[in-house]
């Protein structure tokens, strides 16, 4: 979906067109859900958080200024919701990687052991670092987009991504030993 399509649908959704908003949800849900799943770590909770992010986005659609993409904006909303929710819950590493066993290995395209090792390492990263890694390395956002989503400096995000990647690599190498 192009930026023009997004703009047209956003304008219609602002006027109360539910179908237009549903089309936006349909188009952007893989990125938002992917990010929430990597960041929040638990499939069911992550989808719930992604739903909440979209519902909040619709309620606050008038405040969307179009300075970033719609997906970035909703990711930012989701990040803040998930971060606040995470503060209230102590999610254990066990729970974090349980969902990996529910995945279809063929669909994910990587061995289960590698996915578990990476998910464990991701869960151990600090919130900001994990969010930066999930956005830039998993969901394909640029560093500057991630900086806008996370409300952080560009240099900080770059550093989070580099260091986070190093830790994930280390986790894979440790697993081999």
């Amino acid at each position, binding site marked *: 979906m192009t930026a023009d399509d997004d703009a047209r649908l956003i304008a219609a959704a602002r006027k109360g067109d539910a179908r237009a908003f549903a089309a936006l949800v349909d188009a952007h*849900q893989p990125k938002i859900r992917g990010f929430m799943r990597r960041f929040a770590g638990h499939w069911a909770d992550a989808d719930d958080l992604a739903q909440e992010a979209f519902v909040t986005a619709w309620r606050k659609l008038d405040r969307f200024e179009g300075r970033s993409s719609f997906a970035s904006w909703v990711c930012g909303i989701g990040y803040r919701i998930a971060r606040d929710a995470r503060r209230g819950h102590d999610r254990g590493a066990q729970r974090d990687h349980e969902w990996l066993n529910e995945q279809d290995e063929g669909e994910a395209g*990587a*061995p289960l052991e590698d996915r578990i090792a990476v998910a464990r390492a991701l869960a151990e990263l600090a919130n900001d670092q994990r969010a930066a890694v999930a956005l830039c390395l998993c969901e394909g956002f640029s560093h500057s987009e991630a900086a806008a989503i996370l409300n952080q400096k560009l240099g900080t995000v770059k550093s989070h991504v580099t260091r986070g990647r190093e830790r994930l690599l280390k986790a894979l190498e440790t697993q081999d030993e």
Partner: protein
Amino acid sequence: MNSEERLNRVLGASAAPAKDLHFTLLVMRRAEQERFRAALVRRLIWGAALAILAVAAGLPLVGWLAANPGATEDTALALGALGAVWALSGGARRAAFGRAR
């Protein structure tokens, strides 16, 4: 396959399905519930405000009628006229609430 390639493979794998109509439906249902709740709260606030206004206007009227028993018939007629205007404006109110919903 070295660690770099393995990591790229894990990170590159999609964590969410490309399209999931069920998810979209859940979002829209949740949004609809939230809008319904907001409309209900607006209605309750509107109702409470009207009740307060009615009491605020009714109490002095009762006092005045107690002091002037002869004006009861005129007051009843005036209240009836107000009620008719109120009933006629019902369509406008419904339209306003319809937009809010």
